[in-house]
C-alpha cells in the first residue's frame, strides 16, 4: 500500500476547511460570541444510550484511573454558561466509538455554540444566517425550510409520530418494503421513529436547501426542554441539507432535578442494553443547580458540512487522515 501515507482529501479541501473555520470565527466575532476551549479528556462523559465513548487510562504510578474522550463538548460548555461566560462557541474534536461509514468517522469536528437568552426560533434564524454565509462562497441554496417533525412525518408516511399505534406502524412497514422494522423495533416507539425517519423521511429533506425540523417527539430528546404549549414535543431542532443530517439544537433544559432524572433514566437504559457503563456528570448537575441561564445551543458536524460544500460523496474526501490512515 504505497499511497497509504497520503491524505484522502485533496489539498484544495484543506484550503476549503481553513476558509470555513475562518468564516465561522469571523461570524461569531462580529456577534460577540466568545470562543472557548474545553477538555477533550474528562472524568465523566455523556450518558446518551446511543453514544459510545472511548476510554483511556491516566497513569501516574501508583495512581491509575479511567478517563473519557468527550463525545461532545456540551457538558463543559454548560458549566461555563452557568459560571457566567455569556454566549460561547467552540470548534472542537469529538469522539464516538464504533461510528464509521460514509458519513461517520469516530473522530470528527464539531462546531457547538450557545446563545444566552435565545429561544429556539431565534437560534434557527442564526443557523440560517451562518449557513447562508458559508454557502455563499460556494453555491446558492434554495430558501430555507422550517417544518415541524409532526407535519413532516405525517406528510411522508401518513403516520402520527406523537401517538404510537403499533398496528399502523406495522402496516406502514409492510407496505413500504421495510417489513424487517416490525421485528427490529418491536413496541419501542422511539426506535420506530428512528427507523422510519432515517429511512423514509430524511433522504428527502432539504434538496439543495437548508431544512430545519423542529418539535421532536418527547421520547427523542434527552437534553431539550418540553415545549410549554405541547408537552408531547420538545424544543429541539435538527438541520438537514440534501438528506444529510448536519446538526442538532435545543432550547436547553435548565431544571437540575429534571436533568438528574433523565441522567438516571439514561444510565439505566445503558445498563439494560449492556452498553459500557458511565457515571453521571456530577459537575453538570451542580452547575444546573447553581443555575444555567436560559439559552439555546446548537452543534453542527463540520466534516459533513464540508462534504456538502464540496459535493463530496464520503467523509473520507474531506478528512485528511480518516481512522484507517490515522
Amino acid at each position, binding site marked *: 500500500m504505497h499511497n497509504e501515507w497520503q491524505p484522502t482529501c485533496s489539498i484544495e479541501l484543506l484550503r476549503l476547511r481553513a476558509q470555513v473555520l475562518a468564516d465561522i470565527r469571523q461570524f461569531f466575532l462580529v456577534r460577540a460570541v466568545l470562543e472557548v476551549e474545553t477538555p477533550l479528556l474528562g472524568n465523566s462523559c455523556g450518558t446518551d444510550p446511543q453514544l459510545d465513548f472511548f476510554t483511556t487510562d491516566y497513569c501516574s504510578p501508583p495512581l491509575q484511573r479511567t478517563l473519557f474522550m468527550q463525545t461532545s463538548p456540551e457538558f463543559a460548555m454548560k458549566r461555563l454558561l452557568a459560571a457566567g461566560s455569556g454566549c460561547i462557541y467552540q470548534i472542537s474534536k469529538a469522539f464516538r466509538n*464504533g*461510528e464509521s*461509514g460514509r458519513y461517520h468517522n469516530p473522530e470528527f469536528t464539531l462546531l457547538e455554540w450557545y446563545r444566552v437568552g435565545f429561544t429556539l426560533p431565534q437560534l434557527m434564524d442564526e443557523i440560517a444566517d451562518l449557513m447562508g454565509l458559508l454557502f455563499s462562497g460556494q453555491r446558492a441554496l434554495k430558501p430555507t425550510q422550517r417544518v415541524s417533525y409532526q407535519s413532516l412525518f405525517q406528510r411522508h408516511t401518513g403516520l402520527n409520530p406523537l401517538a404510537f399505534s403499533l398496528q399502523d406502524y406495522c402496516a406502514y412497514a409492510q407496505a413500504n418494503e421495510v417489513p424487517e422494522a416490525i421485528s427490529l423495533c418491536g413496541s419501542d416507539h422511539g426506535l420506530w*421513529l*428512528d*427507523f422510519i425517519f*432515517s*429511512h423514509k423521511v*430524511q433522504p428527502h429533506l432539504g434538496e439543495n436547501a437548508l431544512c430545519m425540523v423542529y418539535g421532536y417527539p418527547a421520547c427523542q430528546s*434527552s437534553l431539550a426542554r418540553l415545549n410549554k404549549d405541547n408537552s408531547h414535543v420538545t424544543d429541539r431542532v435538527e438541520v438537514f441539507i440534501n438528506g444529510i443530517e448536519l446538526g442538532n439544537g435545543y432550547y436547553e433544559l435548565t431544571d437540575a432535578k429534571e436533568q438528574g432524572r433523565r441522567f438516571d433514566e439514561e444510565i439505566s437504559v445503558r445498563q439494560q442494553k449492556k452498553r459500557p457503563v458511565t457515571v453521571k456528570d456530577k459537575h453538570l448537575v451542580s452547575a444546573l443547580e447553581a443555575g444555567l441561564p436560559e439559552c439555546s445551543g446548537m452543534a453542527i458536524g463540520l466534516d459533513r458540512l464540508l462534504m456538502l460544500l464540496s459535493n463530496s460523496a464520503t467523509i473520507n474526501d474531506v478528512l485528511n487522515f480518516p481512522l484507517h490512515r490515522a
Partner: protein
Amino acid sequence: MASYSTNEFKAGLKVMLDNDPCAIIENEFVKPGKGQAFNRVKIRNLKTGRVIERTFKSGDSLEGADVVDVAMQYLYNDGEFRHFMVPDTFEQYQCEEKVIGDTSKWLKDQDSCTVTLWNDAPLAVSPPNFVELAIVETDPGLRGDTSGGGGKPATLETGAVVRVPLFVQPGEIIKVDTRTGEYISRVKE
C-alpha cells in the same frame, strides 16, 4: 459456521438470510445523531439472484454461509443432470438444469467453468468470461467484407445465438464475451 456482525459486512461476504445463502453487496452505516445506529445492507440472494435491501440494528449478526466458488470442468449432460468435475481431485458434481439456468447456452463439454457450492451442493454455475465456440449455422459470409457494419445472427454449437460480422463463416470458431453475449473475434485454429 462463524457468525458475522454488521461491522464485518463487506462486499462479497456470504451469509445466511431467511434460510437462503446470500452475498453482501453494499453496507451503509445509518445513524441519526441522537438515535439508534442501523446498517442498511444491499444483499443478493444466491439462490434466486434477487437483490434486496435489508436494515439491521448495528451490531446484530448473521450466520455465515458455507459458499465457495470452485473451478470445475463441464463433463456432459445425461438428459436429466449436467455433470461437472474438479480437475485436481476428480470429484464429480451433478447439477439440475434449473441451477444452471442461462449458463447452459455457453457450456461445452470439457470446458472449464465456476461452480458455486453451498454446503457442498451446486448453487449456481457461471461460465468463463470468454468462451471459444464453433458456429453451426449462419448466413454464408460475404468474403472480403471486413467493415463490421451490420452483422447477422449466428447459432453456436452450444445453442447460443450471437450477432457476428457479415464476413464470419459457418464452421468458424469465434470468441464471445459471456457477460454481454457479444462477439469479440474469430479464432484461428
